[in-house]
């Protein structure tokens, strides 16, 4: 099998999407940690357009954009499928992956706010997004993929682990057992899946990292915390 490399950064949720997919399928790979404050010639060569991680390199050929990478991994290595067989269910899964990419970023807008109108707006958007997941995405299933995790669960990983960190740092509580019962249970169930459990950034370390990032960001805007 041709060599597989993953260029990522700890603790990017997008890096982890690819790690989870590779591990779930049992694909051996070399992980390369990238320093985004000092981008390597390798990254600039493999992703000249966006200069972002993650980048998967398979047999020397780069694939960029985590959603594209997930599909690529599924296309090349069909074992332990991330997508269902049925075409309509596949379309539903892809719908939610697209939703994850288009709508979940509002939680990072929330991350970058302090108290005020902007925060209220970001909070409102985030709640609407979570409501859509609860009522239309997850409904009463254990996982977005049904009984087992699938590509949509992987795409929503941010909501299971990184959102809790955002809630802690911003001082808001979005997902609670009585407001989003299914989603709340899902965040626990998702992180109990062995491959996921073994491959998550340690919460305390992540909190320190993002606390500093948030402080630096707000400082550049002249806002203190």
């Amino acid at each position, binding site marked *: 099998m041709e060599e597989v490399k993953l260029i990522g950064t700890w603790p990017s949720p997008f890096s982890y999407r690819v790690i989870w997919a590779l591990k779930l399928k049992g694909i051996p790979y070399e992980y390369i940690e990238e320093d985004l404050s000092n981008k390597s010639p390798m990254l600039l060569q493999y992703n000249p*357009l966006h200069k972002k991680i993650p980048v998967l390199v*398979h047999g020397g*050929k780069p*694939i*960029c*954009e985590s*959603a*594209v*990478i997930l*599909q*690529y991994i599924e*296309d*090349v290595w069909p074992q332990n499928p991330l997508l269902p067989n049925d*075409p*309509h269910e*596949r*379309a*539903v899964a*892809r*719908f939610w992956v*697209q*939703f994850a990419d288009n709508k979940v970023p509002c939680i990072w807008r929330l991350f970058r706010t302090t108290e005020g109108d902007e925060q209220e707006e970001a909070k409102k958007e985030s709640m609407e997004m979570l409501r*859509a997941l609860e009522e*239309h995405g997850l409904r009463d299933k254990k996982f977005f993929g049904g009984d087992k995790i699938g590509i949509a669960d992987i795409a929503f990983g941010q909501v299971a682990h990184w959102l809790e960190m955002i809630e802690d740092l911003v001082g808001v509580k979005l997902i609670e057992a009585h407001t989003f019962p299914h989603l709340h249970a899902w965040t626990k169930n998702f992180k109990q899946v062995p491959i996921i459990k073994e491959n998550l950034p340690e919460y305390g370390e992540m909190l320190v990292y993002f606390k500093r990032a948030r402080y630096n960001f707000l400082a550049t805007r002249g806002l203190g915390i």
Partner: protein
Amino acid sequence: MKMAKENNVKLHGMWASPYVKRVEIALKIKGIPYEFVEEDLVNKSQLLLQYNPVHKKVPVLIHNGKPICESLVILEYIDETWKNGPPLLPQDPYKRAKVRFWTSFVEKELFENLLLVARSEGEAQEKAIKVVFEKLQLLEEGLKDLFQGETYHIDGETMGILDIVLCSLFGAHEAQEEVLGVKFIDPEKFPLVCSWVTALTEVTAVKELRPPHEKLVAVLQFIRQRALQASAA
């Protein structure tokens, strides 16, 4: 009776929507018969709200009673479900990844910014126009890598997902030029993009589905006026 239901395809859409146009082109290329249900987007039907409760938008494809939403998701669904017609994606996984990557680029970076040009004026519009030119330059360079020196052959009958998405954006470029007063599809600045778009507008399915120029101009003017009024209010 079972035969009549077997391949029942309905498309809920709106005649001027480029997102809907993508699906129409794909259905035509694959030779799939369908019923078009025109939606009044100011007064959305109960059916639409039921079929797309999350976004409440068109297009929605209904195949044997089951809804599929989001144009790019619909295109992949069509390709996987109707294997008889020409493929919308290449077979090779790496080529597929490239097509998906560039489709994502056109969708996120070009579409959004072109909409901004249509909805703004003055300095804001100047800025948005500059961004579209930057993105087009990136696409022009990307095409050299995507086509890898091979002449990209559009045979007049078939298109892939990236062709369809680019065409849905710039197929109406003449109307865009007329209303916005900017020439984006410029053969001197972007020769590869320009020749590609020109070839796409000649594809039979695209020609058959293109609304008349005057109607495209009118709807773009309407969108622009409405957006400018809203921002002035």
